[in-house]
């Protein structure tokens, strides 16, 4: 069913049998693209999964990048598709081939609004996939794009999005080499969803991965946090606020390449998208069974984002980023890595934010400016305004 996405301007030729899956996809942006598997896996693994009950359903929180997202993966998808590559929990799977290593990643994009300050769904779908490859140490080669269109979407808008995708791909120097288009009934989608899959090559000798994170590593953040999520929240409407916050949506491969060129011994990287750095740090600390200590006052936050979060009662650490990454390097190299990052336009506000420790394995501790500490918890997945 593959076809070049450029042909997507005749969507009605592709009305198809898959429409039922669309509403499910709407709820879990990244994980529910195989709803049938989800159902059977759910039942068969039900005895061992103590935490979810038989009639529990997918909730928006399952897609929020917090604890529930993790449970969806750990309790439903992983057991059903158990294999050693999946198990490494990387942003991109690394596939050993005779002449090197191929990295492969896939991601779905369901963001509303489709156009937001600083980007749009099509651009994001290219950058996001490029970033997953880049933080895995791979050089991107090609991506595929699958579009799910809702009946009624303006073709002019689709054309614009397709052009945005093409431009973004050219900008990062990869080609969109294959694609697919499906149309779902009106009301069964949200205008347009995009799934992109990317492959890249990990050059021989490059050794980047979670297994390399060790006590004594420095943790760097490549820039300010929370820009994307707050830009989306403000653009979505419904909140009586207006701000000039712009999404940080950007491709990271160049910035990361500059670290490699400078000879920095990168241990691991992760782009903290949904769930923000709270989620990414917790996931990593948990995976490597080491403790992280973060100096709160060192974490870069743009004043506008800080204000918006303050006003809405949202923790900026749990808000999504789309053009930033966490970097783990040996402490001795941290200052040099910082300089390299800061020399690149995308890394100007980079900072050393913390370190990896032997203590409290799996737990992320925040050091406050008062010399006190708190446990940085895995967000529940619903960044919502609260009253108390």
């Amino acid at each position, binding site marked *: 069913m593959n076809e070049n996405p450029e042909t997507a301007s005749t969507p009605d030729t592709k009305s198809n049998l898959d429409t039922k899956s669309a509403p499910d996809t709407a*709820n879990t942006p990244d994980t529910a693209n195989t709803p049938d598997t989800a159902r059977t896996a759910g039942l068969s693994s039900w005895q061992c999964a103590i*935490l979810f009950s038989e009639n*529990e*359903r*997918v*909730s*928006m*929180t399952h897609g929020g990048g917090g*604890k529930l997202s993790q449970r969806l993966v750990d309790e439903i998808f992983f057991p059903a598709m158990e294999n050693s590559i999946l198990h490494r929990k990387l942003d991109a799977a690394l596939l050993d081939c005779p002449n090197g290593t191929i990295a492969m990643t896939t991601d779905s994009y369901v963001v509303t609004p489709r156009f937001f300050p600083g980007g749009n769904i099509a651009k994001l779908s290219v950058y996001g996939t490029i970033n997953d490859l880049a933080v895995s140490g791979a050089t991107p080669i090609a991506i595929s794009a699958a579009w799910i269109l809702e009946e009624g979407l303006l073709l002019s808008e689709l054309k614009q999005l397709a052009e945005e995708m093409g431009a973004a791909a050219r900008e990062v120097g990869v080609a969109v080499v294959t694609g697919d288009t499906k149309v779902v009934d009106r009301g069964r989608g949200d205008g347009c969803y995009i799934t992109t899959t990317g492959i890249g090559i990990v050059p021989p000798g490059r050794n980047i991965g979670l297994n390399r994170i060790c006590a004594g590593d420095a943790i760097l953040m490549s820039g300010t946090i929370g820009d994307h999520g707050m830009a989306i929240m403000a653009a979505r409407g*419904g*909140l*009586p606020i207006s701000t000039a916050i712009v999404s940080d949506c950007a491709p990271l491969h160049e910035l990361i390449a500059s670290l490699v060129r400078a000879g920095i011994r990168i241990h691991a990287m992760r782009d903290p998208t949904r769930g923000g750095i709270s989620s990414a740090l917790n996931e990593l600390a948990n995976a490597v069974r080491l403790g992280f200590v973060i100096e709160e006052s060192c974490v870069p936050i743009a004043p506008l984002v800080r*204000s918006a979060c*303050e006003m*809405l009662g949202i923790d900026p650490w749990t808000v999504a980023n789309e053009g930033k990454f966490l970097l783990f390097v040996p402490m001795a190299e941290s200052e040099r890595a910082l300089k390299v990052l800061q020399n690149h336009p995308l890394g100007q506000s980079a900072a050393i934010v913390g370190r990896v420790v032997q203590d*409290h394995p799996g*737990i992320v*501790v925040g050091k*406050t*400016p*008062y*010399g*006190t*500490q*708190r*446990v940085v*918890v895995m967000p*529940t997945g*619903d960044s*919502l*305004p*609260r*009253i*108390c």
Partner: protein
Amino acid sequence: MKHLQEYRDGDIADSIARSIHESTTRSWSIMEVCGGQTHSIMRYGIDQLIPKSIQLIHGPGCPVCVTPIETIDRAHAIAQQPKVILCTYGDMLRVPGSRGSLSGLKTQGCDVRTIYSPLQACQIARDNPNRSVVLFAIGFETTAPANAMAIKIAKTEKLKNFSVLVSHVLVPPAIEMIASDPTCRVDAFLAAGHVCAVTGYEAYHRLAETYRIPIVVTGFEPVDLLEGIRLAVLQLEKGQAFVENAYQRTVAAEGNPTAQGVLKEVFQVTDREWRGIGTILSSGYTLSEAFRDFDAEVRFPLEWKPVECTNCRAGDVLRGLLKPNQCAEFGKGCTPDSPLGAPMVSHEGACAAYYQFSQLSPKMNASR
């Protein structure tokens, strides 16, 4: 931001903390009444800055925690009605009722919307004339004026498809209930600054006198909280007990008369049940006669009998009688992932806060 950053200043916080250390000669238990204060204490580690001999007890001031299960069930029943849009504040989504939570209902197709301001609920009602829009009006005196205004607007605009499920609670009666308990372990109260911004603090003088207990009106930033604690400790050490205002830039003795006027018009005081604690006389609001038409309880009946989880000791925890880790379910049957009671739901809920720290270091937990 101005008037915010100054009150997060590390040096100022440090000097106030030192001053508390200097003044403290005995053990004291101080209860911060408001959930927002608990949140700041956990967020900034304020409890680690003060002498170990001062224990901070997290009070019942989390409106989500004390909303009775019957009301939560009622909200659930309402959300399940066809054509209903239930508007709620984000805090409420995961709170367990006897049949799951609102976020669970959402997955079953109920239209539950999280709002930032109650005026959004009015707008939703205007935009959806064929749907019935119900505002789940919870909160203390701080939130009550906002909800009251939404109700007034609905009446003025004759928004027939708008109603409210009111579960407002009032702080002073709760303080009195705790202070009057013969087993009370609380030596002083930090009264909730933003509640007092609306109500003023005249009502507290009688309480401070009757129960010989210091009450300090306190804000929410680290410096504010430390200053509140400092003033409370000074009173305690000197054997004094009066009402003091540590949040003068925001709180006037008489509060906000305009807001009080609207509250009087829209609501009337009633006995209210506090989850886990029981009924406290004159401790809540219900709609006044003139606004009865907007009462969702009248429009939508509840058809099942609420059942509370019997092992949950939330009431004792919220009164400061029990530490969360002394509850048998703590960390076993009850975790933030699957909370049995409301205090385990949000990060700053008394039980959830304890849970996070118990993970970090069992020793630290014991010392708290």
